[in-house]
C-alpha cells in the first residue's frame, strides 16, 4: 500500500489538486494497466523524497471519468504536474530514467 501517495477522486479534485498550496503531481492510472502498476513504486519513492514540499496523488481513470476527460487523458500512465491550479508539465507513458525524470519535473517547479 502506498504510504506517501494519496488517492484522489473527481469529488475532491478541486480541493486536493487545484487548490493545493503546494505543487501536485497526479498519476493517472488503472488496475488493468500493467505499466502503471509497475511504475507505482517509483512514484511512491518520488513522493517520499518530496514529502512536505510537493504532493503526489493518483487518480483511477476507471472510477473517475470527469478529470481524465477534462485534461484529455488518452493513454496511461500519464503524469501531470499542477501548480496553483494550472497544469505546468505533463508526461505520457513511462518516462526514461523514471525516478530522476519525475523528480526533475517537480524540482523545476519548486525552483
Amino acid at each position, binding site marked *: 500500500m502506498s504510504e506517501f501517495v494519496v488517492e484522489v477522486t473527481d469529488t475532491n479534485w478541486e480541493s486536493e489538486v487545484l487548490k493545493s498550496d503546494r505543487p501536485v503531481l497526479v498519476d493517472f492510472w*488503472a488496475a*488493468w*494497466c*500493467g*505499466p*502503471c*502498476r*509497475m*511504475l507505482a*513504486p*517509483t512514484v511512491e*519513492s518520488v513522493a517520499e523524497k518530496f514529502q512536505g514540499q510537493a504532493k503526489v496523488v493518483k487518480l483511477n481513470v*476507471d472510477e473517475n471519468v470527469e478529470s481524465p476527460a477534462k485534461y*484529455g*487523458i*488518452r*493513454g*496511461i*500512465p*500519464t503524469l501531470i504536474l499542477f501548480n496553483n491550479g494550472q497544469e505546468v508539465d505533463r508526461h*505520457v*507513458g*513511462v*518516462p*526514461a*530514467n*523514471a*525516478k*530522476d525524470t*519525475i523528480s526533475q519535473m517537480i524540482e523545476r517547479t519548486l525552483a
Partner: protein
Amino acid sequence: MSTDYDVIIVGGGPTGLAAAVYTGRSLLRTLVLEKQVPGGQIALSAAIDNYPGFADGITGYDFAEAFLKHAKRFGAEVLVGTGANSIIRNDDGFFTVGLSDGRDLTAKSVILAMGRHPRKLEVPGYEKLFGRGVSVCATCDGAFFRDVPVAVVGGGNSAVEEGHFLTRYASEIFSIHRRDHFTAQKILIEEYLHQPKVKPVWNSVVEAIHGEKEVEGIRIRDLKSDQVQEFPVKAVFVLIGWIPNSELVRELVDLDDQGRVLVNELMETKVPGLFAAGDLCVRPIYQLANVVADGVQAAVSVEKYLEGKK
C-alpha cells in the same frame, strides 16, 4: 582493487532479470539498472500465450512481477527508475557505469540488456498527438477508445496481437499495412482476420495524422493505385518495428547496420568483460523464451570470465 559490484546488468527486462537470477544464485554481487519499469516491453503485453510452461497464458504484468521477485530472491539488487548514462572500460579492465541519478558505480563486468523501443511513424501529427490518440501500447491505451473506430499500423506479431486486443473496445479496427499480407505468425493472423471488427487495409501507408488536441483522423495512401483516403479514426496504434537501445554503447562495441549489437554464441562483445544479450542484439528470432535464454548464457559467461580473472 575492489569494485562496487561483480556485475552490473543494464536493463531489467526478461533478459536482464534472467541474467540476474543466475548471477545472484552464483553469489556474484549483482546490480540491475532498470530505467523504466521491470519487465520492459513485456510488462506492456496483455497476455503471453507462447512462453512454454504457462499453459493458460499469463499477463505481462504478472510475468514481470514474478521475474523481478525471482531475481531479488537470489540477492540481486534492482534499481528501478534509474538508468545508465555512460559505460567506460577503465585501464584496469573494470567498468565504471555513470547512473542517471549522477552516481558512478564500478563493476568487474557488465551485461547489456537494454532491449529496444518501438519505431516512430515519421508523419505529421505523430509527435504532437502522442498520448492523445497516437499510441504504441494497446494494453495501456485501448480502453480509452470504446465504441469508436481506430487504426493499427504494421503487420508483424506486435501489430496483429495489439490489434486483436483492441477488438475488446473499438467499434472498428482499420489494420493498415504496406504489404498485401501480414508477416505475423500464422495462428495470430488467422485469429485476427477472423474478428468481424478488423478491416485490413493492404498496400497502404499513413501519410498524416489529423487533430489538434486529439486524433480526429488519418490520411492513407494506397501504394498501388496512389489513391488517397481519409479515415475518421480516434486513435492510431503504431507497431511498425523496433529500434535497438544501443546508443549508449555505440562507441564501445560493434553494431550492425540496424544498430543491433554483435555478439557471439557466448554473448560476448568484442570488449572483454562486456556482454550483451536479448533484443538489443542480432538474434535469429525475437521471442520471449530465447531472449530469456540469452540472459542465462550471458550470466554463465560472466561467471566464467570472472573465474578466469582470479
